[in-house]
């Protein structure tokens, strides 16, 4: 039996989801016989971690601070072993632009994109380059904040007239945004646990407005199928996801999101280093389909955290 600190909540926009993930992890840890210290991450995080002196910190934080390497760095300083990926991996995965450049450099498929920070528009006249981008990407174009989990701030621009408002919306979440080619295809979530690829989940939106990104994540508006019936493409999808996971040095677990295009190529969108762990989240569903219960999943992650020396991350 050990003492496990569950880090959850925080200031991120995904606070709510994180609280749900965290609560579920706490229950699992209690069932596994551990002493659980739940910490809603705030100003007193370091103090509370020092008081609790946990054997392992379970990072159940999503989005800013928890998934971008900030909290991981803090845990490194405090010499507390923690679940999931290390600092460098988190930094590169949380930023879609860094991750996509890494994919490109390694020859992994990812939709064409262009990315800028706000200063490029304000100080370098990047807006003048928008028509050229629009020519190169074709409409619709997907506009996304570089660092924001969930669907927040993601907009579809159907024509050039939609692009400025979509950029303004995306800049509400981050100082860097990307414009990405829209790939029409099947939406896949590939979960990986300790280097093992779990059954693929496919998200199939019901006949709602295809471009209403937010609505697609509402309960009852999207069907999730696991394992996805991908025929001969399964192997390629799983292999590509695993390559991405290894390329970015992910550890413990991660969820790779991709779109399977008409040619059967899995186009990589992003990697989530702290995927959702709620009742409706995709990674736990994939684990379940592989015969791994939620408790077993949590136990494995804790075990891996303990077994990984910090310097090896």
């Amino acid at each position, binding site marked *: 039996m050990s003492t496990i600190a569950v880090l959850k909540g925080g200031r991120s926009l995904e606070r709510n989801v994180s609280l749900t993930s965290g609560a579920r992890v706490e229950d699992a840890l209690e*069932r596994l016989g551990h002493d659980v210290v739940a910490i809603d991450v705030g100003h007193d995080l370091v103090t509370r971690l020092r008081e609790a002196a946990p054997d392992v910190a379970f990072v159940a934080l999503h989005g800013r601070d928890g998934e971008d390497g900030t909290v991981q760095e803090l845990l490194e300083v405090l010499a507390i072993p923690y679940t999931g990926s290390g600092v460098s991996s988190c930094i590169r995965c949380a930023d879609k632009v860094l991750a996509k450049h890494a994919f490109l450099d390694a020859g992994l498929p990812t939709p064409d994109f262009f990315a800028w920070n706000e200063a490029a528009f304000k100080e370098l006249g990047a807006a003048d380059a928008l028509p050229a981008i629009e020519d190169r990407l074709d409409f619709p174009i997907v506009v996304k904040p570089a660092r924001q989990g969930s669907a*927040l701030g993601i907009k579809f621009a159907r024509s050039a007239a939609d692009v*400025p*408002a979509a950029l303004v*919306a995306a800049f*509400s979440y981050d100082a860097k945004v990307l414009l990405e080619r829209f790939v029409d295809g099947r939406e896949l979530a590939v979960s990986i646990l300790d280097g093992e690829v779990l059954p693929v989940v496919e998200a199939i939106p019901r006949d709602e407005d295809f471009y209403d990104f937010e609505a697609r994540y509402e309960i009852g508006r999207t069907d999730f199928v696991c394992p996805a019936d991908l025929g001969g493409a399964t192997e390629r999808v799983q292999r590509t996801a695993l390559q991405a996971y290894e390329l970015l040095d992910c550890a413990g677990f991660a969820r790779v999101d991709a779109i399977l295009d008409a040619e059967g190529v899995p186009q990589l969108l992003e990697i989530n280093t702290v995927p959702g762990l709620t009742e409706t989240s995709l990674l736990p569903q994939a684990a379940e389909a592989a015969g791994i219960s939620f408790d077993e999943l949590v136990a494995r992650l804790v075990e891996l955290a303990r077994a990984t020396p910090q310097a090896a991350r």
Partner: protein
Amino acid sequence: MTPGSKPPGRSARDLERYAGLFAQRTKVMTSSAMRDLMAITERPEVISLAGGLPDTSTFPPSSYAAIMQSVATEACARALQYGPTEGMQVVKRCIAEVMAEEGTAVDPDDVLVTTGGQQVIDLMCKTLIDPGDVIVAEAPTYPGAIPAFTSYQADVVQVGMDGDGMLIDELEATLDALERDGRRPKFVYTIPNFQNPGGVTMSLPRRRRLVEVAAERELLVLEDNPYGLLRYEGDPLPTLRSLDTEEFVVYLGTFSKILSPGIRLGWAAAPRPVLQKMNVGKQGVDLCSSSMTQCFVAAYFESGRWQDYLASLIGIYRRRRDVMFEALADSFPRESEWTRPEGGLFLWATLPDYLDTTDLLARALQENVAFVPGRAAFLDGRGGSSMRLNFSGIGEDDIRDGIRRIGEVVREQVDLYSTLTGKPAASPRREEPAPDNIVHIRRRAG
């Protein structure tokens, strides 16, 4: 296993254990993104213009103590006992007194005391709505009514407004269109005074016409009037109920805004047959509203000073509203507009249509300030560039500071948009007063 302990391997938080048991109506949910954002507005460092709270810190603690003392000495057993479902007679007389203050006569026997005004909305739906039935509401409407409507699987149709309230012509056209589809709405939901969230007040001609339309078509009107007595300027207008000769209006009142929302007491004044059904519905929900707080209200009214407290609230809220007007004029860009409520708790501000207030809220939260994004007041995704701002719940300095912070992020986004489109941004509006009573949905159409 000891009694009360959980069986091993199971947890009360595991939703999937119960998933097959939930009713269809629980599956109707509001936008998850909005829910996640609103959860963050509750952080203590956030100046929240998102709430709908009256300022209960204005109630004198000494009065509270004296009232509770008198309840304890004079009505202890009664306060601790069940009461009648329809409410205590003495409270119904207080209600008649409050309604008289707005020029509306009511027979206490036509009143049902409820657990907050919200319960009236719920009981109306419980009594009248089968799945798929139509409710007509204003666009925008009270965000808190939406979960009540949707949990009864009502089909909500929203009718536009301008500075004079609900557009009755549009209402009639909507009713005609529904009739052609063989559908007759069960009731029209309206907040005629200082509407939440629009901040506008229905004009007298429209009030008359609405009551006529209801009688002609034999459908009910739910008149939600929580703020009517909180008027800061202008002349009071008669309630729909007082204009209603054919008995098609159900009136909703509450003590929440004139005394306290914590006592959870509201009421319905309705045609007897409707009232009886609501009474039966209430028996199933809670048997009766709190005897303790009904005794509190009775003792409070007996002290004879409720109008004094109301007058003090009016003074405080009027100043806060004016501070908000001033702050908006100082810091919101020229391309934005807002309503100028003559009372109530809210105003409705509308930004250029290329700005999305849900995304803006994410940005505003980084500056520790919050508002309600306009989409929360619609069921069909409209309202994307509007916001509801509350001026009753926080002090004047926080209002100034909060509006300034929102103004800065709006300005930042307007500038960015003009950079992206190559069109120059307009300057702040400072020099000209805000236009009179504009709801962005449609300008004053007469």
